[in-house]
């Protein structure tokens, strides 16, 4: 019988890999690395990932290519040291097929993505480098459908939890997503970085407080308004997905919060055992 050993939210921007990071980038990266270490210490054998930067619009895509390797060149950040690196990912084959199968059984249109040369999104790659720098954990990666309703995301999370439970695997689940948008639209030095809008900053902090208090009902209810007022990354579809993974969301641990090029970013974790059933 499989088990979810941890659930987390991390930002997926490559700035966290910078050689000369802003203080917030360094803290966010450190928090994510620490979370990954804890998951591995808890016996995690695979990562279940949803990244908002792999966005799709028709149905739901699951990465099914057994081995993914290549050189990542970011179309935004190619001029920086963190904009280019080699990668290698092993897909958690049974887990991703189980997840996709459970989603299909729930009535979702599922596409198993298996193409040589497929461009792996920045968020998934950053997640691997932070959470599993030695590349020991195979990954089951799902895209983020830009049209998915919150209820659908939650059901997709449930589908993932069922898939994990049906396998003899210890799984850690991570949603790769930012918080507020509002990019600082100029070339900045890392030390200049700050959340671009005080209103965004206030909203981010409010949302994190609800999560820390375990008030997921308010967090989910306010998600739409937060998204509209703070340009939130994919309308924080990560949150209902996380609830689906958890069954019931308990209090979160806010491990780090700060800006990445004007956007808001946080590393947050939930203890599955604390959160309830699946």
């Amino acid at each position: 019988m499989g088990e979810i050993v941890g659930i987390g939210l991390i930002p997926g921007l490559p700035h966290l890999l910078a050689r000369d990071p802003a203080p917030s980038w360094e803290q966010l990266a450190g928090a994510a690395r620490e979370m990954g270490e804890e998951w591995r210490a808890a016996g995690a054998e695979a990562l279940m990932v949803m990244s908002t930067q792999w966005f799709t619009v028709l149905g739901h895509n699951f990465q099914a290519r057994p081995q993914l390797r290549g050189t990542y060149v970011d179309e935004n950040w190619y001029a920086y040291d963190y904009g280019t690196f080699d990668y290698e990912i092993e897909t958690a084959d049974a887990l991703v097929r189980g997840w996709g199968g459970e989603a299909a059984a729930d009535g979702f249109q599922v596409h198993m993505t298996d193409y040589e040369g497929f461009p792996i999104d920045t968020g998934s790659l950053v997640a691997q480098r932070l959470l599993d720098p030695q590349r020991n954990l195979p990954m089951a990666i799902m895209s983020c459908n830009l049209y998915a309703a919150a209820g659908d995301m939650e059901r997709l999370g449930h589908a993932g939890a069922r898939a994990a439970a049906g396998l003899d695997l210890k799984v850690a689940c991570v949603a790769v997503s930012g918080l507020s948008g509002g990019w600082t639209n100029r070339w900045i030095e890392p030390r200049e970085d700050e959340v671009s809008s005080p209103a965004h900053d206030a909203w981010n902090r409010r949302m994190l407080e609800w999560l820390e208090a375990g008030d997921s009902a308010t967090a989910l209810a306010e998600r739409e308004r937060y998204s509209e007022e703070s340009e939130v990354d994919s309308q924080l579809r990560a949150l209902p997905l996380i609830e689906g993974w958890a069954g019931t969301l308990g209090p979160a641990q806010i491990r780090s919060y700060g800006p990445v090029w004007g956007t808001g970013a946080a590393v947050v974790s939930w203890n599955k055992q604390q959160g309830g059933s699946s």
Partner: protein
Amino acid sequence: MPHQVFRVPTPQQRFSEREPAPAAVERRGGGSSGEILAGFLAPHPPHLVYAENPPANEPRSEGGWEVLRWAYQDIRRKIREELRPDVIVIHAPHWITMIGHHVNCVPNPRGFSVEPIFPDLLRFHYDFKTDVPLAEAVYEEAVSEGLVARRMDHPGVRIDYATIGSLYLLNPEGDIPVVSLSCNNNPYFYTHEGLDDMERLGTATRRAIERSGKRVILAASNSLSHIHFDETPNPPEDMSKEHPMTFDAYRWDIRMLELLRRGRTREVRELIPEYIEATAAEIKGGALSWMLSAMEWPEIPARVLGYQTVIGTGNAVAEWPLVGNGNGSAYLGG
């Protein structure tokens, strides 16, 4: 059920690099032998390339979306036989750059591009030449216009499917040099408020072309209404499934095309924000505003060669013939 995705307000900070580039300032007002021959609304759905079955694309189809493809055939003939441009300058909404307008200055972009949303339709081996001097001139003029911009000179950056699709459909031989511009998603993708910057980018593009001495065509790589299906038909080219996503979106598309056919670009310019709001029109990426601005919002009839939906989105192939249509080039240069 129709959905609208992009509904996030624009950020506060947009401009900071307003210092003119010295080189651009020096050259401004110089020679103006370059000209824009025509502008094309050149939609990029990967379905159209897929339907063409070119050797460069791996997937195979039974065709489909013929009205748009026939329209492209007409354009291709005109480009090769009549216009014979030196360069195609293209603005595409799927090279999304968060910070600034990027100009591809890689001399020979080539590689294999798998489309991340429709990998079943587009896995394309691309290979084209960049007109580097013109690309650098566009960059310089953009900076002189006060826009945040960057020269993209990394050959490893994968070319996006919108650029690939429109370029292939306009010029499948790939023998006309290109200048490729990114879509500065940050201010533009989610709202109409950043379209002013796209118009300034158009102005910068026009100045760069004028001083280049080149004969250029422009391509705005975007769809019109952009509310679409949320599941894919099987097979994708099953035309019995194709229809406008909503009647309202269709009405909006036709209203805008009718205005363009009558040369009423000023009205179009005023309606663009409302159009985007009503239909999630992909022109919010800025390509159409960029192109019409580069052509100084020409009040000449656009030749609308075809309109058809692709997974419910509205798409039109259209031409603004600035030369060779009896109107001469009086619309250039103001």
